[in-house]
């Protein structure tokens, strides 16, 4: 029995693009941050809102940031496929553009979920087993899914327009660090936060995702999370539309 095209492409994305070094860097870095940053700042920061300890605050944020890790991987696969002409090769074979795009987004989602699992495992010795209800787990997964779709869509849309590897990877790195640092992944936003910074932080979709995951971990869902979910859903739809548009206009041929 032949597997559906999207499944074959997703399997290929994982087999062909995941070398141990890439995995170590992409998952090792956030895991390292949970252990080192969590342990060190835990001594300095006595308590952070409903989370309690700093490490308990940090872990949900790092979990939310995995949506960017998955998106970055999907963007990287897409770019390397363009650079090494695999996009053309696959499009000249039994695959449609929509299937390739879907496979990239599914890869981003699966990779994000693997990252979530790894972050939870790394955090276990620090915060214990998070006692999430089924609904809370679902909300976390849905948030990660929407976030992966949003960030993956944005990076794929960018990758479809840019014809220079240097430019693409520079934009991706800047975007990645900007989004993670100007969000509530590492620190909370409070009344003391400068207003300009607060506006930027709340303009960042990762903030909504981090807050929602954090609320799941502290069993404190509120109307704000519904708004956050709605905003993230709308942004995911827009990013997906941009990615589709990028694919429809994708110019095949050499890139640098």
């Amino acid at each position, binding site marked *: 029995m032949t597997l559906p*095209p999207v499944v074959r492409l997703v399997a290929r994305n994982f087999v062909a*693009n995941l070398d141990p070094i890439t995995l170590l860097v992409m998952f090792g870095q956030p895991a390292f941050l949970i252990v080192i940053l969590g342990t060190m700042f835990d001594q300095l920061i006595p308590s952070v809102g409903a989370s309690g300890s700093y490490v308990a605050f940090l872990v949900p944020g790092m979990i939310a940031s995995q949506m960017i890790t998955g998106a970055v991987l999907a963007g990287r696969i897409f770019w390397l496929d363009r650079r090494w002409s695999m996009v053309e090769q696959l499009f000249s*074979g*039994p695959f449609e553009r929509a299937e390739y795009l879907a496979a990239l987004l599914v890869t981003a989602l699966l990779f994000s979920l693997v990252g979530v699992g790894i972050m939870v495992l790394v955090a276990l010795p620090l915060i214990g087993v998070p006692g999430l209800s089924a609904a809370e787990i679902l909300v976390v997964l849905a948030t990660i899914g929407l976030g992966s779709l949003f960030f993956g869509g944005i990076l794929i849309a960018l990758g479809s327009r840019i014809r220079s590897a240097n430019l693409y990877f520079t934009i991706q790195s800047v975007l990645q660090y900007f989004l993670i640092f100007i969000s509530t992944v590492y620190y909370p936003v409070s009344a003391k936060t400068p207003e300009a910074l607060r506006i930027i932080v709340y303009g960042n979709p990762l903030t909504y995702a981090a807050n929602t995951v954090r609320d799941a971990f502290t069993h404190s869902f509120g109307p704000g999370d519904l708004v956050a979910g709605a905003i993230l859903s709308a942004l995911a739809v827009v990013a997906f539309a941009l990615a589709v548009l990028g694919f429809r206009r994708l110019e095949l041929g050499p890139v640098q």
Partner: protein
Amino acid sequence: MVIRVDRLGFAYTPDRFAVRNLEFEVGRGEVFGLLGRNGAGKTTTVRLLTTLLPPTEGTAYLWGKELRACGRAERARMGVVLQSESLDFVTVERNLTLYAFLWGVPREAAKSRAEEMLALFELDGVRDRKPWALSGGERRRFQVARELMHEMELLFLDEPTVGLDALTRQRILGYLAARARDGLSIVFTTHLLQEADQLCHRIGVMQDGRLRAHGPPAEIKRRYRGARSVEAEFERPLTPSEVAELRSTLEREGRELRLVTLELGTLVFQAANAEDLVATLARWAHARGVDLERISVREATLEEAFVTLVSEEAPSPPVGAGAGR
């Protein structure tokens, strides 16, 4: 008919055509060669026929289906070796089996096919290397080997033998010829005219995005180069008046005569009635008291026909240019 191309064209902008007004057909088990200089439009033609580019004028039919309506079902029946190298970041062997997996080839069949391809394309010794660590020739062999991992009825090969040594080229051409005998249709672009002559049942010569001629290689050679090529070497350089006289003598009798060069005592021309002209040439030399050191008559090559064809609009080198130097 596997491919029928009907006034096919592609323009980047309304006044900038890459290919225009193409018309040719490819039958089952036929090898069709596309020849042309760099930028002639060969690769664009392949990209159009493999649905990578949408035509901007005319159309083509793949197995009777209009090109714009062709999709997965038609692409699943074809293989494509693009000019640009494509690879996945795994070993050569894994690339082969992974590609087969993408095409839905069952695992066991893929493994045995991979062994066959590794042996056929002499990649056995590099099976555990990553493709980017291969030499240029090995990478090209890898590209062709990988595409042959799945079944197909139509194969597009865009300059598949670039960078290959003569022995490997011969083996690959032999394999492709055998596959064509089994019914595989092949569209083949190349700069190596000798291999097109050897492999292709019919060829199309492209220039500036247009198909200047197409037909069996022998016909192209005959039509565009005359049946024979003659090379004569005189004992001494001819004087300008001798050159003028010889030229008018040959032109009076020559059918489809094309003088290639006449300088430093060497004359090269092609003509349909080359043997007759050799006799005329000998008589003229005898009458003028000029000894002929050497004279040879041979079949025109496809390369000569190609050069004639693509330079047809350029003025022929003036006969006698440089004579007496």
